């Protein structure tokens, strides 16, 4: 296994991590500030992908697709938050789980009715087609683009959180949720804003994933579980935690998948390694999370309280 392959696999891991970060950022804020478990966050990712795919197919412009995906899920997030979820902020977590589980079923059916049961595919935008040469190994240009977008969003979020009044309120809300209300801030509006921001990022993630993976009903749930792994590993309520958590999960998953079976083959018999390799590779992120939680229940980069 050469260094270049290792580097390329790391890049793959970063690309997955960046996608997970976009999805996790909103989830962790909603969780940290409103103490709300939103299982339907994955549905916003799915619908963002659908909105973007529809716009891209109709207009052929990827930029318009980005607008449609982020704008569409932002609006949808706002509506869902105001109509249903805002009523559940003060309720038990279990009621929130129940309601958002119901929402998942609804959104999946809406997608099925609107876009049909089979997958929708969109092409990589023209200028991003093809691969670039990275020291002898070719790497898809589009995946590099995803990394770029993700890092740009991370920087923008950092500036938003650390340099603006809104960011100050978000930080205050994440560390001392009760205090923000006392500051005379319109809590309902702050909640809606944070929720919508998270929804827009989820929609963007969905669109970015669309040319790589198919857009299909139910695509949000498996990745939601991984996003939950990310936010508890990183520390709930913390954007920084979500970022590092996402990178860790992305890299562990990719590198594990790539090298674990080979590693096992050095230690076990080939047939045993072939059976154990994929199983163990799939378990890896959960092993990491369980380890982190058992030793640091608050996650790796928790929000500082007080």
């Amino acid at each position, binding site marked *: 296994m050469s260094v270049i392959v290792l580097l390329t696999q790391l890049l793959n891991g970063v690309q997955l991590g960046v996608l997970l970060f976009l999805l996790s950022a909103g989830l962790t804020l909603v969780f940290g500030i409103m103490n709300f478990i939103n299982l339907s966050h994955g549905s916003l990712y799915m619908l963002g992908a659908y909105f973007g795919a529809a716009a891209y197919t109709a207009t052929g412009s990827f930029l318009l697709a980005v607008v449609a995906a982020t704008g569409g899920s932002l609006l949808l997030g706002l509506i869902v938050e105001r109509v249903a979820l805002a009523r559940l902020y003060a309720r038990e977590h279990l009621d929130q789980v129940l309601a958002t589980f119901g929402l998942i079923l609804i959104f999946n059916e809406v997608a*099925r009715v609107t876009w049909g049961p*089979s997958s929708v595919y969109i092409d990589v935008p023209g200028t991003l087609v093809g691969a670039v040469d990275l020291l002898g190994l070719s790497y898809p240009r589009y995946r590099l683009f995803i990394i770029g977008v993700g890092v740009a969003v991370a920087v923008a979020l950092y500036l938003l959180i650390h340099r603006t009044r809104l960011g100050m309120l978000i930080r205050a809300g994440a560390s001392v949720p009760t205090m923000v209300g006392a500051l005379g801030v319109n809590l309902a509006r702050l909640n809606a804003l944070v929720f919508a921001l998270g929804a827009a990022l989820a929609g963007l993630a969905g669109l970015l994933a669309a040319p790589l993976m*198919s857009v299909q009903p139910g695509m949000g749930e498996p990745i939601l579980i991984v996003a939950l792994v990310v936010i508890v590993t990183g520390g709930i309520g913390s954007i920084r935690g979500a970022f590092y958590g996402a990178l860790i999960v992305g890299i562990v998953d990719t590198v594990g998948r790539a090298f674990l079976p080979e590693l096992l083959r050095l230690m076990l018999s080939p047939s045993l390694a072939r059976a154990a390799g994929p199983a163990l590779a799939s378990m890896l992120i959960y092993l990491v999370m369980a380890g982190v939680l058992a030793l640091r229940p608050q996650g790796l980069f928790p929000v500082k309280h007080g």
Partner: protein
Amino acid sequence: MIRRLCVLTAVMLSLPALVRAETPLKIGFVAEFSGPQGALGQDQFDGFMLLVERNGGKLGGIPVQILKEDSQLKPDVANQVVQKLIERERVPIIVGLTFSNIMMAVHKPITEKEVFLIGTNAGPSPIAGAQCSPYQFIVSWQNDTQAEVVGQYAQEKGYKKVVALAPNYQAGKDFVAGFRRLFKGEVTDEIYTPLNQLDFSAELTQLAARKPDAVFIFYPGALGINFVRQFQQAGLLGKLPLLSTSTADGLNLPAQKEAALGMISGTFWGPDFANPVSRQFVEDFEKKFKRIPSQYAAQSFDGALLLDSAIAKVRGNVADKPAFMAALKAANFKSVRGSFRFNNNHFPIQDMHVFEVAKDAKGRISLKTVATPLKDHQDPYHTLCSLK
């Protein structure tokens, strides 16, 4: 009034088969209809219904009622719908089944109740061997044979080093094993990915680094579309020969588009077959559904043809199980693949072909027959089956 009743009773007593014909024969159709793999089941259903509708709602001259059930790719759900069909609807025949794991979950519950199982897709190895049942009739293929033909082709092409990829479940392992059986070169690596994994970046990087002579893949449904598109995005298309089964099929090609051109696929049938049954089938199917039929539609169409011939032979009296079983076993019909006959394990003995993805006469991306490496091929498990 009384006289009419007497006459009616007499008719009923003397002509049971005829009276039975008045109430439609119920047939259960179980497949995947939801989720990303739903297109597979839908194609199976469309292929089957094509014949039923062409015959005016009849099979073997008897009106039939098709009860469509979705197994949702969940073994326990499949189990439940099968129970519902058998116990509530009392169907004597169940057709379809898409995935091997679902087939394994319902095979025993169906055949043990002496209900006829007409499999039109999945052919896992256990039921071809030791667990075979006289009530099963698999009109498609045994899983391994689909890959064996590709292995034979790779052998004939003289490839030395091949990397194989498949989802990490039994069918995936069966297909890779099937490929290895007739391929004498070296399979340098077998990569199994989780069944729900849609992003293959890590695996493609490994492929690019290994530089094998060819790649063998088994990725059914949406998995295959994603793999092939990402294969192209990674710049590997054209550099590495891509051999496959159940991946570049009629369902996936419209989404894979140019990314699949030049891919090799092995199976028992292709839309360019020249025999009259196949030509008629392709023509009718395209007219009705505005798309090229996939092999799944063709298999199910054959399933309908098989039932048509057997039901006609017993004149609708499917309750006479030994007679109906014999009629099915005889398989007296003209198949889309030409002639058709069952092996002792009730799987077909058939020619296996290799196809290349290419543009057809109308400029659409389709499958073109390039070779027939295996003639009158039998699956390797039939000797384990105790049926004669």
